């Protein structure tokens, strides 16, 4: 059979090397986040910080924290970006899931799909963001949504909606429709049958999709970059901003923000590991 053969020492070595390559960048960014400024871009590179410090992380919330190392001029705390990312990603995810669930049930149970449907849905992910960013700016300025989280969330919902719909639909498709039909015959209305039977039965799928959409929203960069003016900002945008007059690129602070940014995603990713393939492929590949 294909399975169950043991790993030969040579293959084990290959695997170990692959693992090292896979984890090294993560190791590096984590180490950098713990490095004092003198270690940031030292030559030769310093792998493990000489004196590990949390100052970089503190700087994210208190820009003066690095002054202890003689570095001044960090003017921006990352707090607004972190809060902004949380707000935009969480709300947009919840909305995308709520609307996506309704659409998924509608499509799975009541619609006839044409052979073009997958392409149409996929094309939602194919728009070059730069192409729609400009019209967004024009349209949003007309309705005062520019530089508002409402606007950013609307975009996030729209661009993740094809994803959430299609992925959730694949979960709804997995559930025999007879189960909710049974509930309808057992006395539930159509709506209640979906609410009380369909959705609870795919709650694992809903959770996975939620995490997945969260990953997408949390990672989004270009829209946030383009649409942030004064009040809106997110972590990826802030990450690109950490350059100051005196210290140049704030490697450590950037790394600290990077660590904070990737932590929830890695956790979310591990939590839905089993569904990740499905998520990444629009529900086309199941596990």
């Amino acid at each position, binding site marked *: 059979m294909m399975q169950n053969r043991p790993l030969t020492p040579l293959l084990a070595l290959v695997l170990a090397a692959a693992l090292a390559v896979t984890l090294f960048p993560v190791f590096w960014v984590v180490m950098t986040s713990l490095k004092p400024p003198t270690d940031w871009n030292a030559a030769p590179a310093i792998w493990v910080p000489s004196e590990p410090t949390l100052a970089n992380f503190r700087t994210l919330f208190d820009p003066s924290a690095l002054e202890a190392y003689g570095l001044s001029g960090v003017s921006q705390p990352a707090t607004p970006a972190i809060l902004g990312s949380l707000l935009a990603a969480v709300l947009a995810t919840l909305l995308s899931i709520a609307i996506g669930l309704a659409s998924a049930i509608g499509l799975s149970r009541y619609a006839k799909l044409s052979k073009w449907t997958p392409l149409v849905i996929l094309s939602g992910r194919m728009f070059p963001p730069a192409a729609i960013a400009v019209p967004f700016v024009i349209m949003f300025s007309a309705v005062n949504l520019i530089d508002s989280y409402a606007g950013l969330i609307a975009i996030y919902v729209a661009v993740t909606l094809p994803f959430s719909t299609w992925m959730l639909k694949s979960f709804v498709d997995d559930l025999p429709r007879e189960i909710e*039909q049974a509930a309808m*015959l057992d006395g539930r209305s159509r709506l209640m049958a979906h609410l009380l039977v369909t959705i609870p039965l795919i709650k694992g799928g809903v959770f996975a999709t939620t995490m997945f959409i969260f990953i997408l929203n949390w990672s989004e960069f270009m829209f946030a970059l383009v649409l942030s003016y004064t009040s809106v900002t997110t972590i990826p945008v802030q990450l690109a901003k950490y350059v100051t007059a005196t210290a140049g690129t704030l490697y450590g602070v950037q790394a600290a923000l990077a660590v904070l940014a990737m932590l929830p995603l890695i956790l979310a990713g591990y939590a839905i590991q089993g569904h990740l393939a499905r998520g990444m492929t629009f529900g086309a590949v199941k596990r």
Partner: protein
Amino acid sequence: MKDLQTTIPAVLRLDGLEKRFGAAEAVSDLSLELPAGSMTVLLGAAGAGKTTTLKMIAGLEPPDAGRIEIAGLDLTEAEPKDRNVAMIFDNLALYPNLTGYGNIAYPLRVARQAPEVVDRKVRQLAQVLKIGHVLERLPKTMSGGERQRVALGRALVRDPALFLLDEPLSSLDAMLRIELRAELRRLQREAGHSFFLATPDFSEALAVADTVVLLRAGRVVQVDAPQRLYDYPADMEAARFVGAPQINLVPARFAAEGLELAGQRFACPGFRAPRAAAFTLGIRPEAISAVPAGTGMIDATVTDLEPLGHLIALSAATAAGEMRLTGPAERFAAHAEGDAIGLVFDGPALLAFDTATERLLTARP
């Protein structure tokens, strides 16, 4: 027995029901009346429109045209929950997150019945269905038969006007299937429920039905009592569909002596000749007997012997084409391939079909 119609109220009346999926017609012009308290079987091959019909009755598929009346009420447009019908799906559709108890209790809980009433009803039913031991278990830990019974329980607990059963036994082993269908029959009889059961298996239909509705390509072909369906199939296709081994269909002519098959004329006592001169003769395998060569109505050569347990199916080449006949194993065991034999037809059992329209020509008694 026409007057039965007036004495037994119809629990279900379908009138000109139609349903199409895109260009494909799933059900067309379906009109039916189901008497209360009976077991009616909807028989048809896969894709004949059985499930669509049941789902339209249940309100799960909206018909494109037609009327559905349940227990005297026009419920064509009603929501499923307002139709007072129960349905058992071919995949059973148990709530996977509820225990056996929860599944059976579900309709009662939706109807907000008092917990003690629910409990009483569920336990009572569990006893009848012999599933007391699975009440606390989730469906995935139950055996096929147990799940089947739980599904039955969930339907029975409500006492609806009509039960719709969509191939409820199809997923079970042969032995279990036979056991359960007898039980289904018993339950239906004892409580006087109205069952509308869909199946592709003619032997199941014959075994349990009071009446069989034969459905083909979305149209009703025949509505009849089981044995009559076998004895007088409405057309050639129905004749082929009902009965195993299949009926022999050979071109034949009416002759003064009786019958003419492939140029051979012979008398066939009891054969009720149709009014047409040329027709297709339908001969059930058991309506042929083998006799020594030269002594039969036509001559034949044995081409194959297929043991089927107590019976043997014998294939014989005749001038009119190959024919299959069945007979007791003891009697046929003596034959061997290549043997010359004679065939004798059981005249009263022969059927005549119009070759062109394929409709049954033989008059029904």
